[in-house]
């Protein structure tokens, strides 16, 4: 069975600094998709970044970037120049490449950005 593990239940970072959230996953598939979602106190689930497993290049979206290590099955999220608005729960999620497949979620990391 596919699983997603986020080993850091809580993290904190000072404003303007960089923080890395870890995520590992387990799968026997070769082609799949990985996601980081942000859930602020408003409860809305917001896609932060997405990575296709067949792409070697790490995805980046402005201040957010990933370190995708396919062999190690690791998918960490780096947030640069942290802002107060980055305070949220961050969820790592996995989906295999078949159609209509479900997202498998990690337990989340609660990130607090301190002024």
């Amino acid at each position: 069975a596919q699983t997603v593990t986020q080993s850091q239940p809580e993290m904190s970072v000072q404003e303007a600094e960089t923080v890395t959230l870890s995520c590992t996953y387990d799968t026997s598939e070769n082609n799949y998709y990985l996601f980081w979602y942000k859930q602020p106190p408003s409860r809305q689930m917001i896609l932060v970044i997405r990575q296709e497993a067949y792409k070697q290049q790490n995805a980046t979206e402005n201040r957010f970037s990933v370190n995708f290590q396919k062999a190690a099955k690791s998918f960490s999220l780096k947030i640069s120049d942290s802002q107060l608005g980055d305070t949220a729960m961050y969820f790592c999620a996995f989906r295999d490449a078949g159609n209509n497949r479900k997202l498998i979620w990690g337990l989340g990391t609660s990130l607090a950005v301190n002024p």
Partner: protein
Amino acid sequence: DTAVSQTPKYLVTQMGNDKSIKCEQNLGHDTMYWYKQDSKKFLKIMFSYNNKELIINETVPNRFSPKSPDKAHLNLHINSLELGDSAVYFCASRSTTGVYGYTFGSGTRLTVV
């Protein structure tokens, strides 16, 4: 606005009641989902529909019944509500062609008292 919209955002009801949560997406996506987020923030798939056809049905009590009248709507009906049903329920949609991103609704916080 293009979005996934859920109603209601909050629902407080007594044990034993029957309630429905509605979801609509105007993104033209062909697949819709219901996810449940428990009090510990853990997210789990409940159901998925593709073009009105049930694709995923996880181990969910049969008191929960999804209904998809068309591919833009996926409603969730819950019979005989129990205390353990209290959670946040998220609707999401996705296109199976092109970009494989999911769009989530804002969630419905269900509280059973």
